[in-house]
């Protein structure tokens, strides 16, 4: 069975990942930003085995001879397009961008981001909650980007979000899971799917997140800014599998002391 298939949530021995009634073919979601060129992007996304890619909503650049729509490079039949509200610093902007994304006619899912600070790009908990409540009422399936605070995550679930997406560390930082305890609590307490989003920098970071039992991860910079994005995408696909299987397999207990792997009996005189 190929990794792509194994990674899929449809493998016989793992429940599928379902968000807002939609079945995802992989526990790995990937962004489409920051790639050197569209060919590498497409090759990397395919190597990642992901079936869901995030896209941003932006004004058409009328000075360009031809449009830059990513739809020229990504086939909506091949990938589920998840519009985000990246770049929005107010509740109003986030709602406006979410509506524009839905008007594209592809989906009523939105990756909600209400950024609270330009330097750290950390999410604004109050604003995210307010926007989530409005969008849920408008029938959106909201996947909410949030910090690693359990209380905010619980409130987002109460607000009707389809998934809660706590950060591992700041967007684009590559610092990995800075607070494992927080991610563990969020997964333990929420019923909706938990997707770790932002800050994962390499394969072991992804593995660590998945070993906490979260339902999936979303990556962008870690793949796009690797020296070899296609190979890193493949690494991430395997890391998601490895972390998921390790979680489901139930790891050995870590102990302070040692224990021999070979028999202590049967030694010679």
């Amino acid at each position, binding site marked *: 069975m190929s990794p792509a298939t194994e990674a899929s949530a449809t493998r016989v021995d793992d429940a599928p990942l379902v968000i807002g009634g939609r079945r995802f073919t992989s526990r790995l979601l990937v962004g*489409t930003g920051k790639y050197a060129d569209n060919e590498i992007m497409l090759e990397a996304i395919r190597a990642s085995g992901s079936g869901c890619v995030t*896209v941003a909503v932006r004004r058409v650049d009328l000075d360009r001879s031809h449009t830059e729509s990513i739809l020229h490079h990504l086939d909506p039949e091949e990938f589920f*397009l998840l519009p985000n509200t990246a770049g929005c610093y107010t509740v109003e902007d986030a709602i406006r961008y979410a509506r524009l994304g839905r008007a594209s006619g592809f989906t009523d899912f939105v990756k909600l981001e209400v950024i609270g600070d330009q330097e750290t790009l950390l999410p604004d908990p109050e604003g995210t909650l307010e926007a989530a409540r409005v969008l849920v009422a408008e029938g959106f399936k909201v996947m909410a980007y949030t910090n690693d605070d359990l209380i905010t995550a619980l409130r987002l679930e109460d607000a009707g979000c389809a998934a809660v997406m706590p950060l591992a560390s700041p967007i684009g930082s590559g610092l990995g899971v800075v607070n494992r305890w927080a991610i563990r609590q969020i997964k333990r307490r929420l019923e909706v799917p938990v997707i770790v989003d932002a800050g994962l920098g390499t394969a072991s970071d992804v593995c660590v997140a998945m070993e906490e039992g979260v339902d999936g991860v979303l990556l962008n910079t870690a793949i796009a800014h690797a020296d070899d994005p296609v190979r890193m995408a493949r690494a991430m696909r395997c890391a998601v599998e490895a972390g998921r299987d390790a979680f489901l397999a139930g790891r050995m207990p870590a102990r302070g002391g040692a224990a021999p792997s070979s028999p202590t009996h049967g030694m010679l005189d």
Partner: protein
Amino acid sequence: MSDAIQIHLNGRDREVATDLSVRDLILSLDLHPDLIVVERNRGILRREMYDDVPVEPGDVIELVHFVGGG
């Protein structure tokens, strides 16, 4: 009599011909109607309206689409 009107398009003042529908405008810009979303005077315009809705003087129009993002 003038055969041009002023609109505010994607953040810039722009002079366009009179009697244009939104679809005419889109096509005149060499854009594919199915790949973009139109916001007109802060309201989203459904695609099936592109033919019927005229571009009027002073319209504030945003033509948006999907780009790479995380």
